[in-house]
């Protein structure tokens, strides 16, 4: 028996696992990144084009709207000319792209300020609650889902399972704004524990973040539980139990990393919804973020501002999906191959 051969055989099962290129920037990795970035570029072009067209297809005259019904026709015409709204659509489109590359999104009709300035002022407030809601959501959903799975695995505690799926399913389908109104009613109006709306002290963050994350917690924890149940039924978990490994170690080291990939995939989708949810939640809580701005700008036909905000929202969602995809490949290299 050749000893070296035996050693080779001993390590052979590992070599059957799919491998990516050795350097993170070559081979499969490079192909994956190139493909992913190419798709990002296409998404951005679509996003910019759609946001440009959509806002112009809404009926009504933005200049008349901004100047009021008392303004004379000459003034309105002069203003239209100054804003370049009399140019053919394709030229407006080209100028729009030009502006994008030079960091100039035009001036807001209603606020008389550069759009970039408005976004700069409003974006941080939105990012704050979106980020806090995300962290809070994951910090609650993963433990809740795992505990639910551990308690109900293998058909144990049927009653608890029914109760959990019923309640979480119900909460997951309530829209954010209803949750928001409910939270305001209970905590602010009835018990006067927290401020009704606005962004003042640390306690004013609690209700908007809760309103944004509660639905996500219910939805994501259901997915985490389903994934955890699959993972807990695997042979390697049985082996770990046979080895008398502590339950904590089984759940943390053997189950958690294996359910993270699929949970993260869904988590990325939920995050897109969460960013969209900030629009309604900000409106309900009078939160001085981008959500308030987008509603006002569409209502007032403030083209440049609405376009700018839509693009920022779109970029946020695209960026999040990109980060999730890259994280997925880092955690589980097979997901880069699956895309082919």
């Amino acid at each position, binding site marked *: 028996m050749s*000893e070296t*051969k035996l050693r080779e*055989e001993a390590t*052979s099962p590992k070599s059957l696992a799919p491998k990516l290129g050795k350097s993170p920037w070559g081979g499969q990795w490079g192909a994956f990144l190139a493909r992913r970035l190419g798709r990002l570029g296409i998404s951005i072009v679509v996003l910019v084009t759609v946001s440009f067209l959509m806002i112009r297809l809404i009926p009504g005259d933005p200049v008349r709207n901004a100047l009021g019904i008392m303004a004379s026709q000459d003034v309105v015409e002069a203003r239209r000319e100054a804003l370049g709204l009399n140019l053919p659509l394709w030229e407006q489109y080209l100028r729009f792209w030009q502006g994008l590359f030079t960091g100039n999104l035009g001036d807001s009709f209603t606020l008389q300020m550069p759009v970039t300035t408005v976004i700069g002022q409003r974006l941080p407030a939105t990012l704050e609650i979106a980020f806090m809601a995300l962290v809070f959501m994951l910090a609650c959903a993963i433990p809740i889902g795992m505990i639910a799975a551990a308690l109900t695995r293998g058909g144990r505690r049927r009653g608890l399972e029914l109760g959990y799926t019923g309640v979480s399913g119900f909460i997951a389908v309530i829209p954010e704004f209803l949750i928001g109104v409910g939270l305001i009613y209970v905590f602010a109006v009835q018990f006067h524990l927290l401020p009704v709306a606005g962004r003042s002290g640390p306690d004013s963050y609690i209700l908007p973040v809760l309103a944004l994350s509660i639905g996500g917690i219910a939805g994501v924890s259901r997915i985490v539980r389903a994934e955890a149940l699959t993972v807990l039924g695997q042979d390697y978990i049985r082996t770990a139990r*046979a*080895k*008398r490994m502590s339950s904590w170690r089984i759940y943390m080291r053997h189950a958690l990393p294996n359910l993270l990939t699929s949970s993260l995939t869904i988590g990325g989708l939920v995050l897109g919804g969460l960013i969209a949810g900030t629009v309604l939640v900000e409106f309900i809580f009078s939160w001085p973020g981008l959500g308030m701005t987008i509603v006002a700008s569409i209502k007032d036909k403030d083209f440049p501002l609405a376009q700018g905000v839509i693009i920022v929202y779109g970029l946020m969602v695209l960026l999040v999906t990109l980060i999730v995809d890259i994280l997925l490949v880092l955690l589980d290299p097979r997901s880069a191959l699956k895309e082919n």
Partner: protein
Amino acid sequence: MSTLEFRDLWVRFGSGHTAFDAVRGVNLTVASGKVVGLVGESGSGKSTIARTAVGLSEPHHGQILLDGVDVAHAKGSAVHARQRIQMVFQDPYSCLDPRMSIGASIREAIDVTEKRKRRESANYQPLSRAARDARVGELLALVELDPARASAFPGGFSGGQRQRVALARALAAEPDVLLADEITSALDVSVQGTVLNLLLDLQKQLNLTVLFISHNLAVVSRVCDEIVVMNRGEIIEHGPTSQVIDNPQDPYTQELIEAVPQIGVPLFG
């Protein structure tokens, strides 16, 4: 030198009103160096007892003691005591990893054993890589397989040969107790004989304590010192082999013995 003892063992599958007790209050002692046969029909809980002893099922109630240490509820350093109990499974086709050479399968067990010895005594010198590879060859020779075939994959072996590989793998862990779960039921009669002789030789040579599970009374009576008869999760008869075979007390045991087919005697009529 080890005694395996089951104390009031209950094993339950499912929960609530679908719960099923596969093993119901079994008390059984497998004395050191003895071969105890466990017989009974399908579903009587024989395999479940063995699986619970190695941790593949959880006991619902009761203890499994190896030299007085409860291996079923072990905590801390006692969890490794279970490594001294090894099992050979019923199906030689599914118990080996088809993507690992048989040498690698056995080598894996040797590596774990070396770790265990290191843990048990601080001044133990672990075997070198070459010595471990040599040990793979020794074990294969012990079960009468050609050591040169260590790098071959299980697909290239017959059922009886695979069962011997599984035996070698169990022995690589240097167990004190061996659980043989219907190890011959998937083999034809001529190969059965070879594997059984091998098991008996090794048992004497290594002074193993063996729990031999089978539904075949003819096999059990040849191999075992004592016979335990199980039915519906309970032990209904336990005694020395000759006593149980020649003078069965329980009606179920009598039925089992009468059911052994004999050549020249018609099955019906």
